[in-house]
């Protein structure tokens, strides 16, 4: 069912755990559908320097959480906001169709963490980033409808 990469990230998840004084926290998910993801980021000079996660969920949920934390480290907030759920799934060599919703959760957790950081650190870039954030994540809202 799962690719070797997914199994690797599931068996040896990267960046598990909480963070001391995270700059942004994303909390997403719905226990009724089964997955809950918490993403913690550290941001310095607009760059995500560290990312950690905690997840309650299936193999795909844990693997996508692990992969997204790897993908954002070292990226600027702008670059991180461009990471789509499809990119996370591709990085894992694909997910079964029925598990794609887990990659959407990873994208939402990232988006939520960055949003949290922006609301705590408003500056001249915040508006631009927020606008970019809105464009990038419009498809998530459309899907939610």
């Amino acid at each position, binding site marked *: 069912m*799962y690719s070797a990469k997914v199994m690797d990230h*599931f*068996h040896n*998840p990267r960046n*598990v*755990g909480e963070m001391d004084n995270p700059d942004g926290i994303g*909390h997403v998910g719905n*226990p*009724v*559908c*089964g*997955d*809950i*993801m*918490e993403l913690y980021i550290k941001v310095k000079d607009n760059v995500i320097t560290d990312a950690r996660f*905690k*997840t*309650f*969920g*299936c*193999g*795909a*949920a*844990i693997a996508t959480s692990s992969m997204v934390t790897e993908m954002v480290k070292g990226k600027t907030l702008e670059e991180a906001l461009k990471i789509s759920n499809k990119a996370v799934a591709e990085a894992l060599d694909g997910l079964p169709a*029925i*598990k794609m*919703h887990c990659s959407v959760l990873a994208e939402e957790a990232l988006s939520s963490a960055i949003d949290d950081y922006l609301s705590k650190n408003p500056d001249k870039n915040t508006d631009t980033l927020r606008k970019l954030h809105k464009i990038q994540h419009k498809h998530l809202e459309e899907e939610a409808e």
Partner: protein
Amino acid sequence: MKQIYLDYAATTPAAPEVVQAMVPYFNEAFGNPSAIYSYGQEAKSAIEEARAKVASLIGARNEEIVFTSGGTEADNFAIKGVAFANKKKGNHIITTALEHHAVSESCRFLAKLGFKITYLPVDNAGLVDPDDVKKAINVKTILISVMHANNEVGTIQPIAEISKIAREAGVYFHTDAVQTVGHISADVNELGVDLLSMSAHKLYGPKGVGALYIRKGTKLVSFMHGGGQERGWRASTENVPGIVGFGKATEMATREMNEEAKRLTHLRDKLITEFLKKIDNIHLNGHPLKRLPNNVNISVSFVEGESMCLNMDMAGICASTGSACNSASLEASHVLLAMGLDPVKAHGSLRFTLGKWTTEQEIDKVLEILPRIVAKLRAMSPLYKN
């Protein structure tokens, strides 16, 4: 790595004696049982021998056994067959909230055609209250279907009590006994049923064959029309090797069932007791006593079922889960939800079902491995506060 298989409720390996019994019927005694010549008659008598064995296991008459392609077909046949044959009399069917999909989907299909279905609730151990059955019966009720024991949590229903109520009201009673035949006593007269579904691959027989017990005099419409096999009940050239295998499996079950039930109950209870000791924040789903001898279903708080099963698979243990993530519909087990379990606990459920080749060493291994897996996943879980 040798696998520890603990998903016997899903399917069982065919016993070697069963496979051996089947082999001659593929290309030696391969005749069509409807043929006049000896090849055909040879196959025909093999089927009748198997029929007698199946009938004997459930205390039925030979002619009351109709072979099908499995438990699902038997359920469809019973429910739709009674519905269509008796629709002038009434259009109301009573069943429960925790039936197998073969029963509930058949009922949902009939509902689209105008039948009225009542799904009776269950308590938190998964038991149906016979009083609820009585209250639900009305002048239009033509069928009541309650499974003998539930495949997910193992709860055994008070079938004799319920069938008595059905009989007194003049309503046909069907039970899906797929999980009980061959494992605990499932005598049609003790249970008092008119119809009973069975499946070979749940009792060390081959896949693709089962049977419906039809009490003499029961009015129902055939499911399969064609060449008139099975005394007109179910057309189709008979699956001779499958039926022979089924017969052999029931013959073995008749001999071994009681001892095996004792052995499995001991292993089951050890697994339950030790799990409860070794892992905090878990609980048993289903009735502690009115339970199949081989069924262990637990909910582990703060972690999700599929990830536990994947981790167990990597350690060589095969089990299953009622988690939404593991179902095609992305819904948690309807059985656990019907029992009032909250959805998060349903997502953290694990089912271990033991069988013929389960050893005490395997149980000990599982008791060693699962606590480590739970600890690893809890460390990753946002719901677990140490």
